[in-house]
């Protein structure tokens, strides 16, 4: 059962990633793109955990933990950059 669950979850996450990339490309303002990037980093964390379950190796959870932290740092950095006045139209 877990094999099918991981395969279906990987398909769902791929669909979510494709939808988010559409928003990343279309996004009218830079803030929209930052929101899409934040969601992409969260989807990547989910991907790594699902892959760890699929191959049955627990150490991959550490990678997901580090990536979750890094995604937050990137988002905060972008938000500070926006607020201090970068190029906001694109």
């Amino acid at each position, binding site marked *: *059962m877990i094999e099918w669950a991981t395969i279906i979850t990987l398909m769902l996450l791929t669909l979510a990633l494709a939808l988010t990339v559409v928003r990343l490309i279309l996004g009218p303002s830079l803030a929209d793109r930052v929101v899409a990037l934040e969601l992409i980093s969260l989807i990547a964390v989910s991907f790594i955990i699902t892959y760890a379950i699929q191959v049955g190796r627990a150490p991959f959870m550490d990678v997901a933990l580090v990536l979750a932290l890094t995604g937050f740092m990137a988002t905060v950095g972008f938000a500070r950059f926006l607020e201090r006045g970068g190029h906001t139209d694109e």
Partner: protein
Amino acid sequence: MNESIAAVILLIGGAFVVIGALGAVRMPDLMLRMHATTKAGILGGGLVAIAGGVFFNESEVMVRALAILAFVVLTGPVAAHMIARAGYFTGAPFWERTLKDDLRSNLDKAGGYLYSAQEQREGKGRPQQQAPRDDGE
């Protein structure tokens, strides 16, 4: 038994992530997109992390899964607040059917400063303006 529980939690988490991504594509403006991505995305990612902890059934992996959950749940709202604030200051366009935007009159966009209601009364802020759309109801 553990595998079955982990499979169910994993599928629910993946479904929530898809719902969040769907909201990111379909919603009409920045704030509504963030409404979809932060809540549904964080719930989905947290459920996937818990599924990982349940599947491996070791205390050290469960601690890592709970740490991922705690990081995502604690940092998600902070990041969302910062992006929303930055987007509001930089003038991200709102949906044309937005009914209420009380903060707009307190915003000094050039200085990047939000005046409080008391400063408004003392005349430090800009004069009160109409909400973007105010047609009765």
